[in-house]
């Protein structure tokens, strides 16, 4: 299937494609200049000359920083630049076994068999420098322009597949997205950036970062984004009463972001805020089609203060105090009546942990967390739904070095929910064996849970959803076998084989007493099995390749294939410099197999090709980057959520362009 799709797109004769293959090699040859060959061995050159000699940074496949005995995929700042990723969703879309679905309001993440559109929770925890960024109403991660971070501020994104409740508790269900932001030192001055793109899109950013002489590191950044969007057609509304299914000027999006961080000695203070407004062209929940206003506003903010210390030579401690908030506003019209909604979530918490290496062959981790979700309110036309809750947790882990090449990692976390007055235990056991220095085999068994969020449990608007206060937590038990092979520092091969058993999966379903309503219930158990494989290699010449394939099969207890869960996912990233490294091309290819819609129809698979060209040599300190997404103008659609009924699939963007200029004041 993949092959057929590929050859189809490749044989397509396209002016731009032809231009690339003909122009680039010629241009590169035209300026070929032989570099002077260094003949003197470096050890014979005096040190005072060596310190003046420029070095070429070695190509190296990034090593994980997430401390987890599972499979970890990594996207670095360099990849973000080379492949032109503008949102976290685009970063995630390029990763092993992951995919995103956009319903023209939110971007949902899928992976490991699960990816139901409209499932805000997504079941993946998003960490920004250790802060849990999911809100406390919908548990959503906000991966698009509604997310907290500009991708230019990201140093790396790690995807840790598998349950992470043993460390992070509630909600770290199928995996963790761990984001590490850049330091002020990485900017070392003022950077401004301006971008324009298709559909009347523009973005401006200004960032200042510096490491001061006393060692303090500061970073401040703000950006603004605006897109006019498109006039869209939805065939399900193809009648004269609904403008023949056409929406006009109802796809606009805009955001504003702020981010700041400061580090000094053992202290780190960080905060971010994003305010995003997006029109909804899909008339969700049965709103009037092609009628303004129909928009949602998502505003998220957080502040976190971290302190790292050590006691003696064996004990390291880390304490994080955090505050977060999320506000949602919506305007729409239902049968001509204006609709207005405001949701507010606020929370704070403190997490403290220590690692102890005092005992030979043991690395012990002990921690505790208290989190207060002191506001979880929905202000609906029918009245306010208010709630609050708290969670108190303790956790312990030990990494036990049995022999030179065998490690045992075991631990558990106990979470006590103040709301339900009940506790949950999430254990994990992992065995790591390195038969060779370059090869590691990890076998793990873990269990994780997710409590129903405030929206799933309490939301009751009298028009679309009925509350279910009896909703119970969902659970997953996962067994995974991971193979990691690094023949050298430039190459990495990662493979994993897994089996997940999910109990009492929370999902929205037709309300039993009135089919015009939806209600979240503990739907059924489900099983997912699958495997994935990823190969990454970097060359000293600057060439980079990362390629992955994933196969997964997710079925509920009746053997029914889960919604929006493709069986095949293939990714290819290839980038290389040309013209003496002054330019770079980055190719991003994604294949997503066919999926089932909410109506059980099968929506076809697609191959997407994105191309980014980056130039560093136009003027000193200026970087120009041009991206074409969906290069071959493939028509494809994402599965719509049940809220978008009668729409089954949502058409996605055709070929679109993006041009970005970034200037460093040095």
């Amino acid at each position, binding site marked *: 299937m993949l092959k057929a799709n590929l050859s189809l797109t490749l044989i397509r004769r396209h002016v731009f494609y032809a231009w690339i293959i003909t122009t680039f090699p010629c241009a590169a040859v035209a300026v070929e200049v032989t570099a002077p060959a260094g003949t003197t*061995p470096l050890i014979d050159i005096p040190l005072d000359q*060596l310190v003046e000699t420029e070095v*070429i940074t070695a190509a190296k496949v990034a090593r994980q920083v997430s401390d987890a005995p599972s499979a970890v995929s990594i996207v670095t700042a360099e990849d973000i630049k080379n492949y032109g990723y503008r949102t976290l969703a685009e970063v995630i879309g390029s990763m092993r076994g992951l995919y995103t679905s956009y319903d023209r309001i939110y971007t949902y993440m899928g992976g490991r068999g699960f990816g139901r559109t409209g499932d805000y929770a997504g079941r993946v925890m998003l960490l920004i420098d250790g802060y849990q960024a999911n809100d406390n109403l919908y548990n959503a991660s906000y991966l698009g322009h509604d997310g907290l971070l500009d991708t230019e501020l990201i140093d790396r994104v790690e995807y840790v597949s598998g349950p992470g409740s043993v460390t992070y508790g509630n909600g770290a269900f199928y995996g963790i997205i761990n984001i590490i932001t850049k330091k002020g030192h990485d900017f070392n001055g003022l950077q401004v950036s301006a971008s324009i793109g298709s559909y009347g899109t523009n973005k401006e950013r200004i960032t200042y970062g510096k490491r001061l002489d006393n060692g303090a590191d500061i970073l401040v950044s703000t950006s603004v984004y605006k897109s006019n969007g498109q006039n869209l057609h939805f065939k399900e509304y193809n009648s004269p009463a609904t403008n023949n299914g056409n929406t006009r000027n109802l796809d606009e999006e805009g955001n504003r972001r702020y981010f700041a961080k400061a580090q000094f000695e053992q202290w780190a203070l960080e905060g971010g805020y994003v305010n995003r407004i997006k029109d909804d062209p899909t008339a969700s929940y049965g709103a009037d089609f092609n009628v303004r206003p129909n928009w949602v506003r998502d505003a998220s903010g957080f502040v976190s203060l971290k302190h790292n210390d050590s006691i003696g030579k064996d004990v390291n401690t880390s304490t994080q105090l955090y505050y977060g908030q999320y506000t949602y506003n919506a305007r729409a019209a239902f049968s001509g009546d204006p609709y207005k909604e405001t949701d507010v979530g606020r929370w704070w918490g403190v997490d403290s942990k220590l690692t102890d290496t005092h005992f030979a062959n043991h690395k012990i981790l002990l921690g505790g967390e208290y989190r207060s979700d002191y506001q979880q309110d929905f202000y609906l036309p029918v009245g306010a739904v208010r709630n609050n809750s708290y969670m108190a947790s303790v956790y312990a882990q030990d990494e036990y070095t049995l022999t030179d090449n065998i490690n045992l990692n075991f631990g558990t976390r106990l979470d006590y929910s103040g709301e339900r007055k009940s506790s949950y235990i999430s254990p994990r056991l992992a065995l790591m064996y390195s038969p060779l*220095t370059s090869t590691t085999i990890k076998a793990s068994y873990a269990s994780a849970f997710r409590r129903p969020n405030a929206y799933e449990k309490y939301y009751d608007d009298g028009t679309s959803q009925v509350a279910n206060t009896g909703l119970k937590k969902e659970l997953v038990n996962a067994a995974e076998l991971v193979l990691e092979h690094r023949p050298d520092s430039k190459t990495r091969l990662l493979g994993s084989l897994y089996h997940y058993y999910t109990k009492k999966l929370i999902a929205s379903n037709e309300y039993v007493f009135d089919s015009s309503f939806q209600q979240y219930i503990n739907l059924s158990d489900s099983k997912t099995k699958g495997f994935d494989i990823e190969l990454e290699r970097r060359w000293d010449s600057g060439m980079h390749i990362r390629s992955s394939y994933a196969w997964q099969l997710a079925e509920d207890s009746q053997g029914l294939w889960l919604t929006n869960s493709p069986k095949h996912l293939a990714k290819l990233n290839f980038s290389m410099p040309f013209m003496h490294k002054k330019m770079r091309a980055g190719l991003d290819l994604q294949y997503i197999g066919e999926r089932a819609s909410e109506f059980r129809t099968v929506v076809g698979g697609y191959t997407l090709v994105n191309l980014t060209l980056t130039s560093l040599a136009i003027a000193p300190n200026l970087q120009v980057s041009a991206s074409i997404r969906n290069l071959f103008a493939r028509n494809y659609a994402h599965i719509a959520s049940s809220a978008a009924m009668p729409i089954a699939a949502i058409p996605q963007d055709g070929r679109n362009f993006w*041009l970005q200029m970034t200037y460093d004041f040095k």
Partner: protein
Amino acid sequence: MMLRHFIKLLLSLLLFGVATTVHAEAVPETEMRAAYLYNFALFTDWPNPTGDTIRLCILKADQTDFATEKIENKLINGKLLTITTISSSNAAKGCQMLYISSYQSSSVRKIVAELEDTPVLTVTDTENGAAQGMMIEMLLDNNRLGFKVNNKAVRRANLTLSAKLLRLAKTIY
């Protein structure tokens, strides 16, 4: 048509890019690191006789961080520089030099404590490694490799670094 404008713009960027060709002779970072380690050995005096060899120890996981082949078995003031791979820092006491890559940053404090006052020259790529008690910290700055020296730690271990080396250090603690 949008596409044509886009191509024109790219083409002009490309051509402009060609006009500003600059060339400099640069060295791979791994080889430069090896050369630095060689020089550190050259400019260090150990208190006790080290025999005919200078043993540079590296952790198993750090093998690929520098071009070991460029300096292995080279003579330094008549002594042979050997490279030994060790599985844990406990084994470093019998070495003259220990190199720790930035991936081992979490173990820096532990290693410093373990080797306290032992005449082992500790070298690292870890950020703030020298401030944490490692003797020499290599760092990349403006595409050039530089280094910081924690001379207090050097002296506590009864080692002596030559004045020439100290003069070239970016920072001395």
